[in-house]
């Protein structure tokens, strides 16, 4: 897909902005804190209505406003020209697609894929398991309604079981009732995460080899908390773990405690890889995510690169560039214009939430 027009109203520091995108490569240039990333964030919201920077809606709504509105005009492989409108309030969201109100997230997910490359992505290597799980869930759920359903069921059933454990007066009968709802959904998550990470690993390895330009094998390793993707086995484990869970007042077994990690040359990247290697790993992972979206949906994702070019040395930057899908639309930000070898760009100068188009450089 290609984003052709993006209009923001009361979104973060932008009172009003309307950008028309021509061509395939667009660059937002300006000092830090002027609102470049806000625009990428707005563009990325169309995919799953989630920001890559925050889980709090109210941070997205301009100061003193109660509603932010985003309007997208998209050139879409399957649907032709499509108009999407998203309204954000402090306590909720409303979505329209070609003037029709969309009320189920499942109907929207996967239709408008974008992939964000950001310096915060290093947290996928260095950060907490919860950050990696969130990324994995968003990636898999975006293209798989079955995964989303299993995730919602497992999350809710787990919350109910934990509420029961916290109450301190959980009966075996009630625990059992929620375990039987939890176990099949959780087993499905384990199976789909295992398969999904295998597919993602394949394209990540290819991209990493290109970016790192060295004969160092990289891998993506799933670490399930409970490795058997079987509802019966998980149910038995939950049952036998009741006494311990009651003592800790929370559920200690299940995919809500899953993790995955990266390796380079067969050792854990978190502890042993250089910063350059870690950066290459997450760039490769994002490229794999884009390939996954494209393969699953038949729609080519828009790539949103938030200040990542400036952080790479020239050789790595050129190799990263050649690893990207040459047909994909790219919206990138930076404090300086990119080097000439990265092609022609449509340029917008960004200052204090205002976007001004400059004549294209070549």
């Amino acid at each position, binding site marked *: 897909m290609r984003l052709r027009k993006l209009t923001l109203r009361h979104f973060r520091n932008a009172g009003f902005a309307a950008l028309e995108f021509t061509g395939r490569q667009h660059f937002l240039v300006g000092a830090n804190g002027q609102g470049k990333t806000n625009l990428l964030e707005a563009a990325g919201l169309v995919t799953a209505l989630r920001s890559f920077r925050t889980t709090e809606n109210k941070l997205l709504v301009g100061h003193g406003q109660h509603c932010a509105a985003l309007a997208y005009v998209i050139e879409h492989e399957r649907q032709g020209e499509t108009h999407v409108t998203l309204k954000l309030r402090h306590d909720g969201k409303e979505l329209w697609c070609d003037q029709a109100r969309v009320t189920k997230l499942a109907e929207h997910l996967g239709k408008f894929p974008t992939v964000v490359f950001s310096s915060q992505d290093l947290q996928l290597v260095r950060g907490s398991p919860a950050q990696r799980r969130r990324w994995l869930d968003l990636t898999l759920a975006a293209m798989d309604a079955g995964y989303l*359903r299993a995730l919602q*069921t497992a999350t*809710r*059933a787990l*919350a*109910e*079981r934990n*509420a*029961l454990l916290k*109450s301190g007066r*959980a*009966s075996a*009968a*009630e625990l*059992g*009732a*929620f375990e*039987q*709802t939890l176990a099949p959904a959780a087993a499905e998550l384990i199976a789909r995460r295992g398969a999904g990470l295998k597919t993602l690993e394949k394209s990540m390895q290819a991209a990493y080899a290109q970016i790192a330009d060295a004969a160092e094998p990289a891998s993506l390793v799933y670490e399930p908390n409970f490795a058997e993707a079987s509802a019966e086995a998980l149910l038995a484990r939950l049952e036998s773990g009741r006494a311990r869970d009651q003592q800790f007042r929370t559920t200690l077994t299940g995919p809500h405690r899953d993790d995955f990690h990266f390796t380079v040359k067969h050792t854990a990247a978190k502890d042993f890889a250089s910063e350059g290697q870690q950066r290459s790993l997450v760039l490769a992972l994002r490229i794999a995510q884009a390939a996954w979206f494209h393969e699953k949906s038949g729609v080519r994702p828009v790539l949103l690169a938030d200040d990542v070019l400036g952080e790479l040395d020239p050789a790595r930057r050129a190799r990263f560039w050649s690893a990207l899908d040459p047909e994909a639309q790219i919206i990138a930000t930076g404090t300086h214009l990119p080097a000439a070898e990265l092609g022609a760009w449509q340029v917008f100068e960004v200052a204090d939430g205002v976007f001004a188009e400059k004549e294209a450089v070549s």
Partner: protein
Amino acid sequence: MTPAFEKLQQHLKQLPGLGYRSSERIALHLLVEKPARLASLVSALEAAAAAVRRCDRCGNLAEGPLCGICADERRDRGLVCVVEHVPDLVAIERSGAFRGTYHVLHGKLSPIHGVGPGDLNVAALRGRIEAGEVGELILALPNDVEGEATCHYLTEHLAGAGELKTTRIGFGLPSGGGVLYADSVTLKSALEGRRGYH
């Protein structure tokens, strides 16, 4: 507005489905526009509050010990359809597809909301099963996590012991919704196509 008016409006606003605007409209309507309606409304409220209670057998609304359905000799008492709330019962009745009786739980298990088995109308159902009057239990509870968990609880801790036939409807219903949101045709086919549970 006066203090008494505001107090009335506050009470109305606490009713389900009423916001600030609609509670204001109702209060104005009753006090200013059509004050003649007020007396009959008050007496209807008092009469209903005095007369309406829960059916001893099934938990449905009743004006005596038994509701109209339980008192009807032509209904099949061996066939019991378990629902979450009274409006679910009303929706199934409206479909005309069911000739058995009901059991209204008045809720579903939800530890998050502090609802346990003791808060549901489960003891009366246990009594009906132990008295041997139930041949088949149809679980018409919502498709969501709490509805499913309540089904598991009921089948294992009430129906599990005997040779009671247990079936589940709700699979064909819109995901996450209950019987209340299904139309009559959908309900009818769900009832006819109910499947064995466990």
